[in-house]
């Protein structure tokens, strides 16, 4: 198991969003999170990545095994594409960015300032970072936003290669990714019930009984 989630409750701020999420991810497995807007996909992914602490339950993963890519892309507009990638390679202790550049066809853009990229080109750069990070578990939040069909296929190929190499991936998306082996999890199933007194994960001030 590279990632095991047990009876997890997650939320943003004071509000519990999802409750009782459990799943296990073996090496080579991919999980696609689905659900309507505001269902809690982003919240769940942030918890998996260790950014938001869970309300209850546990996330089991090797330390430093998760690579997260969210809506914000963490790209510095003033640096070139190559400089951006090199920086992340250095942060993750790698020094090879060539493969990542190739996987998302960034060679031609290497010397372009990241601020001058189109939306899809920027997205490709932020996906290339995943390859540079070299982490086994990918937590991706709407990774294919702004990508054209060709680049969605590139992304699918990158994920497939990652899975084939023993990695795992959890991805939230609203569109079809074209990754054959992926299972789907509808997070709407886990929507947290309206809070009631005595809940372990609930806000201690939010119970039924008035003060």
């Amino acid at each position, binding site marked *: 198991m590279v990632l095991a989630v047990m009876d997890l409750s997650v939320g943003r701020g004071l509000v519990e969003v999802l409750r009782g999420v459990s799943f296990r991810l073996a090496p080579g497995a991919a999980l696609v999170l689905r659900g309507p807007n505001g269902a809690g996909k982003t919240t769940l992914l942030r918890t998996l990545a260790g950014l938001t602490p869970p309300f209850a339950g546990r996330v089991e993963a090797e330390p430093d095994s998760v690579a*997260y890519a969210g809506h914000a892309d963490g*790209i510095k507009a003033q640096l070139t594409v190559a400089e951006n990638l090199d920086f992340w390679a250095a942060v993750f202790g790698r020094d090879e960015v060539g493969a990542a550049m190739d996987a998302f066809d960034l060679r031609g853009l290497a010397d372009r300032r990241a601020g001058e990229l189109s939306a899809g080109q920027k997205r490709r750069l932020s996906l290339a970072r995943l390859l540079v990070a070299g982490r086994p578990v990918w937590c991706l939040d709407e990774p294919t936003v702004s990508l054209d069909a060709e680049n969605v296929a590139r992304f699918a190929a990158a994920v497939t290669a990652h899975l084939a190499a023993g990695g795992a991936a959890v991805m939230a998306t609203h569109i079809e990714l074209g990754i054959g082996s992926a299972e789907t999890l509808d997070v709407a199933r886990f929507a947290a019930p309206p809070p009631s007194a005595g809940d372990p994960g609930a806000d201690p001030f939010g119970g039924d009984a008035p003060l």
Partner: protein
Amino acid sequence: MIALILRDLRLAFRAGGGFGLALAFFLIVVVLVPFGVGPETGRLSGIAPGILWLGALLACLLSLDRVFQLDWEDGSLELLATSALPLETLAFAKAIAHWLTTGLPLVVAAPLLGVMLNLPGPAYPWLAASLAVGTPGLSAIGTFGAALTVGIKRGGLLLSLLVLPLYVPSLIFGAMTATRAAEALDPLPPLALLAGLSLAAAAAMPFAAAGALRVNLR
């Protein structure tokens, strides 16, 4: 960590970057003071060490909200937090980068600007020494404040209010070093105290800042 410092330096130097910001602000203060208080040389040279230290401190304060804010806005901070780099190291690297882009230029520029305020002769080396010793402390304290307020849009107000009281001791000892030198008294004791302050700040800051960052990233 070195990659991080290098990146921050590179960002600071690029395209209108923040590199000169503190320096420009410092220059502004020093140029404007005589306009404000009037040009009598006697009066000017009396307040020169204080104004120079104050200018350096304000310049430092000014650039603090950029320490983490830009990285937070574009998501880099989240990504750095999920990387192998401990947040303590991150905070330390940020403080170093901040000092290199802010404190160091101030140390170099202060004696030159002292000329404009008629700083008395013997005070020059001590002014530079006190800034060299004191500004790392300012950067360290400031980085902690920036970590506390990251994510708060327009958190600059809060940041200034939090950091200000922490800066007062540095200001007092720093200005005292230069003033005592100007008045031909022994400037060493306040300088030693200043060095102690900076060391303590640099040693304690990474842990406090990392804790604050962890809370703010939730």
